């Protein structure tokens, strides 16, 4: 009997211990669940930070349908992030012209829609077949990217419909681009306003004082709110152009679109949609050797256009 009592007492005590263990186990599970129920991280913005953008001009002739990329370029051995085709603005003020010779008319979308790219990488493997130029148009927010070194011997451009008037094709080659995840956007900025006549060029130091450079601030981004021209930015330290004759429409902030399904594309593409300002890699800009050139020819002198540009630093 005593043995049974002892046994029963033993069981009761053990039962308490069991209960205690179960309760502790439940507590531990609860704590683990608390730890594991971490709220999902807010999705950071992915920004493209541009280090090098170069211009390529290809002169196109009426009736000729096939063209090749130039060979003697700085980026021949670089991984090309993307190539954008520039569609000249047609706002009724005449034609935009080449930033290099100042006279050759830059071609427009009606010619570009029938343009295709066959691209080969440096191992001579085709990486793009019949890539339609609208997929890499400058106003395309999500252009097809290349992310490869190119074979400049094999890569070609062809037109299914030949152009009926001589002109030039402007391509912008992006390389060295970084992609960063960040929630930060640059907060400080300075905005400048000035006017340019057709064919006129202005150095940036004449419109922006040396405040940014003297304060050792680095430029992180650019927005061009108004003005059609070609922007060249040089690095203060090595004088290399970071942006080489980049058309200001590629630096335009979000403004919307006029396009509507079921209607014809508007002829005057006066609105270009960009996702973000053009972000740069903390550049110490040499404002004395950086400039903007009007995209209109010299004989359009009467046509004076206003520029508004924001530098973020």
């Amino acid at each position, binding site marked *: 009997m005593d043995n049974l009592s002892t046994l029963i007492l033993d069981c009761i005590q053990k039962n308490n211990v069991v209960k205690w263990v179960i309760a502790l186990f439940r507590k531990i599970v609860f704590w683990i669940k608390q730890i594991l129920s971490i709220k999902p991280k807010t999705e950071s913005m992915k920004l493209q930070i541009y280090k090098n953008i170069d211009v390529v001009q290809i002169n196109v002739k009426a009736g000729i349908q096939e063209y090749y990329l130039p060979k003697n370029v700085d980026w021949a051995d670089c991984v090309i992030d993307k190539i954008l085709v520039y569609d000249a603005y047609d706002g009724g003020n005449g034609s935009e012209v080449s930033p290099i010779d100042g006279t050759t008319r830059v071609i427009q979308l009606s010619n570009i829609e*029938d343009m295709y790219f066959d691209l080969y990488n440096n191992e001579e493997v085709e990486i793009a077949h*019949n890539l*339609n130029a609208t*997929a890499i148009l400058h106003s395309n*927010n999500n252009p097809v990217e290349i992310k490869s070194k190119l074979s400049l011997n094999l890569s070609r451009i062809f037109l299914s419909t030949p152009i009926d008037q001589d002109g030039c094709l402007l391509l912008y080659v992006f390389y060295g681009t970084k992609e960063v995840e960040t929630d930060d956007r640059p907060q400080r900025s300075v905005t400048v306003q000035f006017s340019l006549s057709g064919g006129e060029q202005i150095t940036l130091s004449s419109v922006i004082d040396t405040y940014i450079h003297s304060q050792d601030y680095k430029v992180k981004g650019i927005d061009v709110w108004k003005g059609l021209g070609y922007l060249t930015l040089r690095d203060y330290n090595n004088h290399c152009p970071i942006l080489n004759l980049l058309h200001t429409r590629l630096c335009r902030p979000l403004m919307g679109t006029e396009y509507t399904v079921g209607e014809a594309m508007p002829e005057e593409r006066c609105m270009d949609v960009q996702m973000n300002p053009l972000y740069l890699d903390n550049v110490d800009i040499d404002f004395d050797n950086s400039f903007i050139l009007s995209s209109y020819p010299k004989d359009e002198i009467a046509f004076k256009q206003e520029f508004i540009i924001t530098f973020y630093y």
Partner: protein
Amino acid sequence: MNQKLSGAQLVLVPITKIGVNKFPFVENIRSRFIKFIDFYGVRYLPNSAEPGLQNTNNLFVTIMNKDGNREIIRNLPLARFNFVETLGVRQPIYSNISLSDCYINCQNASEVGKTAAFIFWYDLPEYSKANSTKKLVTDSMSVPLTTSVRYNKFPDEERMNGKRFRRLLLGTPSVTPDLQDGLDVRQLANIYVTLRKGSYNVLENMPVMMLYQLAMLQKAEFQNIIFDFQSSFLTIGGAGTIPNVDRDYIGKSVFFNMQYEK
């Protein structure tokens, strides 16, 4: 949120009266996790001679949860789903829903008698794959239009077999690389694509304009889906009722660029 796309289905909702107009029951959507909904406002709809709803004024959408007893979205203006206004920045749903309990509240008498077209984008895990490489190839395909009332089949391009597709991009050339006449944007608005995998319609009657990325803010990227182009096809909307459809469409081609994993 995973914004990549996998399955899509066109759902037509007849607007029969002022007030509540319920969505139809669609078996395929019943158990699916719906990611986004797009409204497509165009006159000519696939396999239908009924006029499509184009105006979004005074129309509101309510989306119900899978049990049909709770609103996920209540009376959101139809414009929020209109893909030409959202420019690809779609209204997220990210839920299982009870489609037949969802409805459009029509407060615009002039829209009664029309049919609203919606694209439901849903998760299709059985056909989706994670990225296996960063290396992509960009290719192209032209699809000739031969009929306004039946299916216009994709050409059999063997090199695309088994490829895992990330992007499908509609082009708008007037002449394709194989020297066929293309359609203009106004005509392309009436073209719909069905891309299949085996016997399943991964994208069913999706307007090809939703693959026109030029004006879109948000990138449309697929989850490495393998399509069977041999059984896929294009449809011209309106079921033969588009004026001069034979002259303006037949004999022309629709051009796509596509990106797939190398």
